[in-house]
């Protein structure tokens, strides 16, 4: 039963209106979580005893870094689905996620530089964590460039999927880099095996901001995938009917 539903929603014509209904829900959740996260981050969480007010960059840095890695995994998942089952929607999903993932990788590096300068005395160091995150940004850019360079969308999806899947190996490298190598970057703030290494109110602010970014990513990726669906399905009757209704 669930199989049938999955295949039903993997049809672009069914997914398009579903995504359209979900977008405002994710925007609303984003607004609530972002306001709550910023409130906790700036007005509830206390000053850090070592880093003063400078530590407040954490409220976006950690969420953006998580999103950049998680989005890559989801993108690679859809790419793999496309290779395995040749479903049309998979390649569109991967293409819709790549720019958002790239932007979060950029935000992660940008906020990291602005945090590194006052705390470490350097905007950038060739440290395992920072370098592997930079490679992640390059993987996103490579995926976008490669898929845009090939005119035939099916071939573009396949080439992009192979790149995305090979690049997956980089995600655990980023995540475990602070354990595997001696790095300047601090260890994980939150881990599944031990208590968080920070005050719980700071942790709450960070989680709220991370969840807000999650909702943002869902909303934006769905917005983009709807445009990609229109572009790629322009020769189908359902898109023609949809646009005819719109122009009346």
């Amino acid at each position, binding site marked *: 039963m669930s199989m049938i539903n999955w295949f039903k929603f993997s049809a672009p014509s069914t997914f398009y209106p579903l995504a359209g209904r979900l977008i405002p829900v994710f925007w609303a959740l984003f607004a609530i979580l972002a306001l709550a996260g910023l409130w906790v981050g*700036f*007005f509830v969480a206390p000053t850090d005893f070592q880093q003063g007010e*400078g530590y407040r960059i954490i409220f*976006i840095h950690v969420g953006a870094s998580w999103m950049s890695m998680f989005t890559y995994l989801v993108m690679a998942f859809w790419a793999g689905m496309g290779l395995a089952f040749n479903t049309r929607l998979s390649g569109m999903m991967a293409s819709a996620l790549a720019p958002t993932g790239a932007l979060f990788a950029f935000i992660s590096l940008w906020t990291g530089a602005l945090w590194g*300068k006052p705390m470490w005395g350097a905007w950038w160091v060739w440290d395992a964590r920072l370098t592997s995150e930079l490679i992640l940004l390059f993987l996103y850019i490579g995926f976008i460039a490669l898929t845009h360079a090939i005119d035939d969308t099916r071939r573009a999806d396949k080439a992009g999927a192979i790149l995305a899947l090979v690049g997956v190996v980089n995600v655990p490298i980023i995540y475990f880099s602070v354990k595997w190598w001696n790095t300047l970057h601090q260890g994980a703030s939150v881990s599944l095996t031990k208590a968080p290494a920070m005050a719980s109110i700071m942790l709450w602010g960070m989680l709220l901001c991370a969840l807000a970014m999650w909702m943002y990513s869902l909303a934006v990726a769905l917005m983009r995938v709807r445009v990609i669906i*229109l*572009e790629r399905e322009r020769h189908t009757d359902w898109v023609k009917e949809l646009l005819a209704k719109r122009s009346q």
Partner: protein
Amino acid sequence: MYWNSFSDFLAMGGYGFYVWGSFGVTALVMVLEPLLITRRRRATESRLTRQIRAEARQEHA
């Protein structure tokens, strides 16, 4: 509340440049991305609508 005044809030204990540089660029990115997608959507819709109308005229002719 840890801020005595608005300028105190802006100063961020001397880290204002770094904190607002981080939050500002993040906010800018998160405003621009949906705007650009909306623009791309409008452009795509009007281009495809024109194409469909042109095809319809050709069929009638």
